[in-house]
């Protein structure tokens, strides 16, 4: 008797796969936030460029940034960048696996170090800005 090729059924995998479970939705948001991180990096480069163009150009640029639409965009970007930062810090201990002898250094401690660094840098920046 000849061996018959077994026919298998290939289930479709729709493009909406990520809507089916919450972890996938959160993952897609995390991926989307990187667009805002990249966008804001470009904005900062433009910012520095304007600074090189003299006081007038820079002054106009700063005025434009005070418009309601600009403030709204900044708030949206802030929310996405915060989400990106928090998810990234939470993932870091998975990649940064450190041992002390046989004992693995707790993941919370690794992530905590990043959060502590973030707070310290934020406080320094805040003091610098407010102190001006």
């Amino acid at each position, binding site marked *: 008797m000849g061996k018959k090729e077994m026919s298998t*059924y290939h289930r479709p995998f729709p493009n909406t796969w990520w809507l089916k479970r919450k*972890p996938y939705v959160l*993952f897609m948001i995390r991926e989307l936030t990187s667009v805002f991180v990249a966008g804001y990096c470009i904005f900062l480069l433009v910012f520095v460029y304007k600074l090189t163009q003299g006081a007038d150009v820079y002054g106009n640029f700063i005025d434009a940034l005070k418009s309601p639409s600009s403030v709204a965009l900044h708030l949206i970007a802030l929310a996405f960048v915060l989400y990106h930062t928090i998810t990234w810090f939470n993932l870091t201990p998975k990649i940064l696996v450190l041992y002390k*002898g*046989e*004992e693995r250094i707790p993941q919370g401690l690794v992530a905590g170090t990043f959060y502590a660094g973030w707070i310290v840098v934020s406080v320094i920046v805040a003091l610098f800005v407010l102190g001006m």
Partner: protein
Amino acid sequence: MAETMKLEIFRYHPEKDNEPTFQTYEVPFLEDWVILDAINYIKDEIDGTLSYRWSCQMGVCGSCGMMINGVPKLSCAVFLKDYYPDKIRVEPLTGFPVERDLIFQMDDFMTKLTEIQPYIIRNKDEEKPLDKGEYLQTPAELARFKPYSMCINCMLCYAACPVYALDSTFIGPAAIALGQRYNMDSRDHGRDARQELIASHEGIWECTFVGECSAVCPKDVDPAAAIQRAKVSSTIDWFKDVLIPWGKKK
């Protein structure tokens, strides 16, 4: 029959079906029953044509992986009571071709598992004769790779991975984690041999770090971490090659 529960099970018989269907079965609800108990009840008492894989019934063999309400789980490790009184939908693991009912084809995974060379590879000149005894390892050296060695090849991680479902050329979580398990073993010299596959486009770089492979792993292997760590070490390799071309290649 006192309390009952309904299970909606994926059915596909290649000799007569072109498309799968779902069949609903009513089973007794018992506090201490896992989903596999209910499926065994269906097979024994209601419908002997239902096909599925199972063996140890204690979360060790890795045979009874199924999609339970869309989440990959070992059916011997989830209780009916966690879903009671709702209907439970049972499907074969996502991402694999279905052979019959809940049985999926695992050939692709088996091939990848072989390709990753999940065994200790020694440099020929560093192999010592048997009478010289075993290769010793400190508890600290063991701790480095032990979590990755707990894999039972249940393939839940593949079913949780959208990358694998979209592109089955991806080597996938369990195979890469097992490769890492040997790469991190102090007795092993096979990293270069595995690296060609691990650092290929179908290897670690296909992974987008969804992280669900680790979330569904019944043995806490954390394949997502294994893949990201392999990305870090492969990147270091690349920098060493580019920045120190005269340096000794590892």
